[in-house]
């Protein structure tokens, strides 16, 4: 009996509304934070940072964002790539227009710009639902990518049509550009992940989260208890797009450094993030992390095993990866729509009773 809930009672409603009401989970959470902030930065190298940790952190923010919209509020979106592009181009314009301002504010600003754009593209959700809304967000995806390709103002009239992140520092440490250190980039992203997860958790446990879930579960009943559907849906679009914008901004400025929009933020990005929340768990913050970790780690792992150990050709390994992801999506959709997060919950329920399951 390592994991238990017995004897762990909440005696106040404050305590009951905590993120981790169970002591073991709370300790686990503090331990993870301590390791993430205090240990990993000392050991991280360029390979781990670029192949695993930084993409994981950035995708976790995007997955959180999409999960708010789709998992909590029930509005399916295929526009994630496009909204990440908005974040990327917004941070680029901000970085180049106001070089004296700290990049951290640029990233947040990019999130706000994306929130605005998200609200705009969320307007159709008032009239259309489900499949049709998905198609409308798909249109947003293609429109945004087209826009950033077409209008030279967005890429500052550069000859290549690409955007390239200039060097920027935070507290004197370089976080963007070619001369960055793995630990600095990692920590910079980690702070945003922490911030976004904290905001997401606060919003989903209170009245906003309940409004979103009410709309998701039954919009007619939501309206009858006084939820204004317009405000509820648009607030979900705004919050979701804010996170996705932040992730797009980091993806460009910290991770890639230079971006060609079709390649970096195409429709496949939208699907990748959608798969993350399906595999991780719709309507779960933990699930957003689990899904991002899974889809970032799996290709790395497969490549190491199949190409590194077994000597398969790279393209074959890539196809194999597609097959695995596809099979997993189908499996999760059919067997466990609540994803890894639900598997984790079930495991906990079992653990709680272990070793006496009856």
């Amino acid at each position: 009996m390592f994991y238990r809930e017995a004897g762990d009672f909440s005696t106040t409603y404050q305590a009951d509304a905590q993120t981790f009401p169970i002591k073991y989970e709370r300790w686990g959470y503090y331990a993870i934070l301590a390791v993430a902030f205090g240990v990993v930065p000392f050991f991280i190298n360029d390979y781990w940072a670029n192949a695993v940790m930084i993409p994981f952190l950035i995708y976790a923010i995007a997955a959180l964002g999409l999960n708010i919209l789709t998992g909590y509020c029930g509005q399916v979106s295929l526009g994630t790539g496009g909204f990440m592009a908005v974040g990327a181009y917004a941070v680029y314009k901000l970085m180049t227009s106001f070089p004296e301002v700290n990049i951290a504010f640029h990233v947040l600003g990019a999130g706000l710009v994306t929130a605005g754009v998200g609200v705009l593209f969320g307007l159709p959700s008032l009239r259309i639902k489900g499949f049709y809304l998905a198609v409308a967000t798909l249109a947003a995806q293609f429109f945004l990518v087209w826009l950033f390709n077409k209008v030279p103002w967005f890429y500052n009239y550069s000859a290549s049509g690409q955007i390239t992140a200039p060097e920027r520092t935070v507290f004197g440490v370089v976080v963007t550009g070619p001369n960055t250190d793995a630990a600095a980039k990692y920590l910079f992203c980690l702070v945003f992940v922490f911030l976004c997860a904290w905001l997401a958790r606060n919003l989903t446990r209170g009245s906003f989260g309940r409004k979103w879930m009410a709309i998701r579960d039954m919009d007619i009943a939501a309206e009858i208890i006084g939820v204004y559907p317009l405000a509820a849906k648009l607030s979900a679009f705004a919050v979701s797009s804010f996170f996705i914008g932040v992730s797009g901004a980091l993806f460009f400025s910290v991770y890639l450094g230079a971006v060609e929009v079709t390649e970096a933020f195409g429709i496949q990005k939208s699907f990748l993030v959608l798969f993350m929340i399906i595999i991780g768990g719709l309507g779960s913050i933990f699930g957003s992390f689990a899904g991002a970790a899974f889809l970032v780690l799996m290709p790395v792992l497969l490549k190491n095993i199949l190409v590194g150990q077994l000597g398969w050709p790279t393209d074959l390994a890539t196809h194999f990866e597609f097959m695995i992801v596809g099979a997993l999506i189908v499996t999760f959709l059919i067997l466990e729509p609540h994803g890894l997060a639900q598997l984790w919950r079930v495991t906990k329920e079992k653990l709680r009773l272990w070793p006496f399951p009856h």
Partner: protein
Amino acid sequence: MTETSEGYTTADGRQIGGVLMEMKNITLRFGGVTAIKDISFDIREGEIRAIIGPNGAGKSSMLNVISGFYHPQEGEVWFHGSKRPAMKPYQVAQQGIARTFQNIALFEGMSVLNNVMTGRLTHMTTNMAQQAMWWGKAEREEVENREIVEKIIDFLEIQHIRKTPVSRLPYGLKKRVELARALAAEPKLLLLDEPMAGMNVEEKEDMSRFILDVNDEFGTTIALIEHDMGVVMDLSDRVVVMDYGKKIGDGTPDEVRNNQDVIDAYLGVAHD
């Protein structure tokens, strides 16, 4: 019983107040179907008002007019002494009218507690920034509203399923949770569409007791649709009888029971 504009005293000695809601000459059509034909009636402060009638009589449609789902082609809705403009359901809810549905309309993906908490949404006003920080007002508001919700959970005796996902509950309990959600709004007017449909005798007794207690303890005005005549006679102060969209009776349970049109409608006398 003598009715005045100030109200009346019921057989069991409860004091009923003035008119809370008044429907004036409501006509509602769906294409060729006229679901409600020129119906007028009122609901007084503190009373339990039943709406009865055979299947398809237009009872649910009437509740849907009150709660803003349907907008009648003709007629006026008066609430608190003033004419109500055309309103959306969420605006009606914000005016203090809560309801349950004939087919349960709970949020299946949420726990019982969260479902009942959604009933408090019209009372929760912290903005997004405060919520996002979970500081001061947001947490305080959550705790205050949780306390009210816990009282209702106790009142309806559903403490043991507080954290259970609604989708796992049996039908009778779902009906009770839906009532809890409506009560959580602390409505001035509570609309119940067949709260006892599909229940066994014991569950019906429980539900009747809850409805009487709600009316008694919170002074909530209740309008309810019910098919079980025994229940209607026991619970209600006044009854509106509908048939084919028309009002064929209105009065105390005794008056209605002895009304020839009502007897005909229930015995299925041919309509000409």
